[in-house]
């Protein structure tokens, strides 16, 4: 049985269901609204696993699901050496979101990571601690800042309402996912000109480590062919 992991709720689930539907594969939730059980119609040998989008990378890497739908951002952040564990099969054209580095719009002296580094050095000298950047994407942000040569910063964990941390004075800058930029603007933040850390969208991934029988292999080939993702 080929196991397909998809997000279990919200817009991401609806869009995923539509994307498969368009390609002749019907995904549906079964049972009550609150029960996380699902079914697949239009192809035999495929089972639906409903998951939080954040858990899809882990399940793919563990080989507990063969295919999974989740954002590029989550794969890159949660799986070191992700290329060895999963393979992108199709970009699905929704769930567009960029991971960006943003600072208060009133910082007219800061437009590039280069400026951020200089501002961080001065901030640390003035305040006695490192300039704080709120994010939940620790690894991606740290790697990005290391490549950009930014020092004297500290990451602080923020699992939600990250744009509010600056006004609340728990961080001086943020790194978060944005699609329209509306929330950033509403919170008087601007994206650094070279502050795009990752451009992400919903993507269908194949696990490189999940075990497949000969029968599974055939089902997988048929499914990917149907999805135009082989």
């Amino acid at each position: 049985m080929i196991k397909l992991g998809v997000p279990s709720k919200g817009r991401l689930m609806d869009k995923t269901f539509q994307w498969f539907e368009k390609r002749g594969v019907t995904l549906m939730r079964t049972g009550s609204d609150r029960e996380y059980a699902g079914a697949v119609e239009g192809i035999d040998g495929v089972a639906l696993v409903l998951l939080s989008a954040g858990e899809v990378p882990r399940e793919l890497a563990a080989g507990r699901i063969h295919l999974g739908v989740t954002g590029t951002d989550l794969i890159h952040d949660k799986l070191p050496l992700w290329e060895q564990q999963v393979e992108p099969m199709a970009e699905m054209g929704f769930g567009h979101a960029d991971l960006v580095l943003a600072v208060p719009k009133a910082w007219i002296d800061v437009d590039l990571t280069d400026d951020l580094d200089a501002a961080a050095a001065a901030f640390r000298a003035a305040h006695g601690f490192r300039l704080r950047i709120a994010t939940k994407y620790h690894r991606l942000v740290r790697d990005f800042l290391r490549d950009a040569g930014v020092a004297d910063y500290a990451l602080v964990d923020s699992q939600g309402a990250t744009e509010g941390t600056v006004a609340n004075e728990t961080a001086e800058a943020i790194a978060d996912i944005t699609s329209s930029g509306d929330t950033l603007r509403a919170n008087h933040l601007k994206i650094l000109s070279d502050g795009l850390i990752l451009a992400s969208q919903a993507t269908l991934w194949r696990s490189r480590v999940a075990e497949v029988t000969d029968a599974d292999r055939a089902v997988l080939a048929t499914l990917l062919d149907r999805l135009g993702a082989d």
Partner: protein
Amino acid sequence: MTQARERAHALRDRFIAAGAQLVKPPILQPADLLLDLYGEDIRARAYVTSDALRGEQMLRPDFTVPVVQMHMANGADPARYTYAGKVFRRQEDDPDRANEYLQVGYELFDGTDPAAADAEVFALIADAVSPLNLRAATGDIGILMAAVDGLDTSERRKAALRRHIWRPRRFRALLDRFSGRSPVPETRAALLAGKAATDAPLTGLRRQSEIDARIAALQADAAEPPLSGAQMDSLDALLNVRETLPFALAQMHTLCADLPALRPAVKRIDARAEALSARGIDVDNLEFEASFGRTSMEYYDGFVFGFYAEQRPDLPPVASGGRYDALTRRLGQGQEIPAVGAVIRPGLMDELEGTA
């Protein structure tokens, strides 16, 4: 007892025989100090854990910091310490690199004769790994610092360069900007022309006075003449010095003509070469590379060295060390005790001998 552990104990005993006192720092170290010293990068390299009482703790990524702390709190000068135990390094990119391994170290705190202290530590380590025929690489972060200090430019530019000595790419980008080789970014030009404005309210801890101060600094910097071509060429030549020690020294003496501030640092390397020679090191064949050690941890600020297995370029250095006077200054709250130290990885020695 495992092979590596037996070897670790033998090395430790060798260091005790050389006059070192055995110390045993705890495995769990307070995270705030290490974070303050190394910045966020340390989180990518060390395991962090926590409890409600003590807050964040790190599994020791090295012994140097706790040994320095211990010495600054109650050590006598001079002092020699040794230790043998595991360090823990988080690995995010290379599954073949060990995330816990044994280290045996030797740390020497003695301000009377730095050249002799450097030579003592280097010779002791060279002797301990001598059966493996490793390639020794040496360098000196102090000479890079001296070169930066000696540039004819503003203190602010020098401070920016000093801050990024350990980030070669960033260091290069700064040099290119200060010498006028790279253009002024558009947004910077607009800011300098007074054309950057915003109606956004200022949020967060960074104050308007800090923004104004940075703009004033940028304006002052824009009025600063570019670094001279001659000094840039000398600095490039210095960064590219990679020779056996006598030839490297000859080149660096020549560079003193354009960068006279190098002279004291070059003299220190002269003295070190003599001290190494007196310890029986074949300095005529010892490699010196001015850029060596620039990508490792930030605390080395003088002599740096590493021992590498030439047939196994995939392996990290079997032994490495250097001088870290600035670290003792940071941890000593004002007092400073010149210090130099090194570690050996007995597990790698076993691997190279084919006995692991």
